[in-house]
């Protein structure tokens, strides 16, 4: 516990120093966060190049906006929010050529493994049809394990919006896995 406490204190210290313009501290902080940022960005964007651009942009925005961070203990959530915004920006660039990179899917023959692979391809296809906002909620919930209330706070959206995005996304994924693979009709219920 003492070790964990020290690690937390050291991290808070890094954030505080970086917040006051210490580039070396920021370098250490960025080094500790970059793997997670890249992983999240790749999960959301489904494109390694765009994900790297988004993660890089998120780190630069993080540096620039750190003096605005009011509570250093909320650094993680604040950084995720910056990353999701950066991912959304990169996604806008992507739309221009997205139509050319759709994955061709052929249904598998038989067997459990083949079926599992097929399911993941269907998940992939269903996930790609979602907006970045919807994907972000799914990734933050299922990859980072954040509860929806915390996701709402992280993204600066009402809890109801986070919940509706999540349920819409999961319905869409479920539909993708169904034989018909249809999207749900309703987009989002305002909170």
């Amino acid at each position, binding site marked *: 516990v003492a070790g964990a406490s020290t690690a937390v204190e050291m991290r808070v210290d890094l954030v505080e120093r970086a917040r006051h313009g210490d580039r070396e501290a920021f*370098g250490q902080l960025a080094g500790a966060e*970059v793997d997670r940022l*890249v992983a999240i960005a790749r999960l959301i964007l489904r494109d390694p190049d765009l994900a790297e651009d988004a993660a*890089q942009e998120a*780190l630069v925005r993080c*540096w620039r906006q750190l*003096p605005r961070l009011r509570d250093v203990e909320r650094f993680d959530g604040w950084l995720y929010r910056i990353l999701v*915004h950066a991912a959304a920006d990169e996604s806008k660039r992507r739309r221009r050529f997205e139509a050319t990179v759709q994955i061709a899917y052929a249904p598998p023959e038989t067997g459990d493994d083949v079926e599992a692979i097929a399911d993941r391809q269907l998940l992939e296809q269903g996930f790609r049809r979602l907006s970045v906002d919807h994907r972000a909620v*799914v990734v933050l919930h299922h990859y980072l394990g954040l509860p929806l209330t915390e996701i709402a706070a992280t993204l600066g959206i009402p809890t109801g919006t986070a919940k509706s995005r999540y349920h819409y996304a999961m319905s869409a994924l*479920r539909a993708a896995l169904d034989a018909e693979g249809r999207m749900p009709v309703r987009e989002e219920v305002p909170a």
Partner: protein
Amino acid sequence: MNARPDLEREVTDWLNDEAVTAGSDRVLAAALVRVSGVGQERTPRLPRSIEMPTYAKLALGVAAVVVVAVVGINLLPGRGGGIGGSTPTPSPSPGASPSPSPGASPSPSPAAAFPPPGPLTPGRHEAVLDGVPLSFQVRPGWVADEYNDINRGEYGQSDGASFVFWDSAPDNVYGDPCAHAPLSPPPGDSSEALAAAVSRLPGTDLVDGPTAVTIGGHPGQSVAIRVADDIDCDVGDFWRWYDDATGGPTGGWRNGAGLGATIRVWIIDVDGKRLWIDGETFAGADSAVGEEMQELIDSIQFE
């Protein structure tokens, strides 16, 4: 109907299997190269040496005596003490009290004459700028920062807005905001001259003004500029104006977030004192955000 009851687990497994960090080294290296040439977005830190109002000095002195006598230790390492007769507590909790109640959140410097950091309750709040007491009214959603800022929404985003209430009004603008070179010769001491200098700030487009205005019954100037999309430096290094009391051109400057940000400056003459408030909205901002900011300015009252 529910053919896939384990969908949640399926999605969790899928995402965890898909999570890869390849490319992190490249990302880190590229980001740090960019960061090395980029400034941070900060508003001016408040000077510790700024002259305090007499009543505030007296109150601070009384509070300090009480603290020393009763507690016997120095409780004022950074943000203890207070203005307006506050009683410091051993564990001040910035932001714990959203209201500007003088006794709720003690602080030692002139910054104490501003609502403490944290969410602002909707309604009227008090502040003292350069010794001039005033109050202003906010709608829900505004948060006070530690640098005499109040902000709403996401800073730098279209729903965001940010005010800086200067504790000491700027004296000059930058003649070259990217090179951080002060305007030379300085524009002069009048509100009109300063507003005119703001209106001509290189790297910005004039939105409107300068215009003579009345705020809280006192005369002033208002001018709005927009940061151009083609400035020659990172926007974090695009410095706009400064005042000598907060350290001069390299001490207390104003920069901000985002190309296309619109900044409106209000310079108010209050019985010989010049006050400066600037408010910023960001690219894509809805007109309602600007209207809400103007509403706040219109709500200002002086004692």
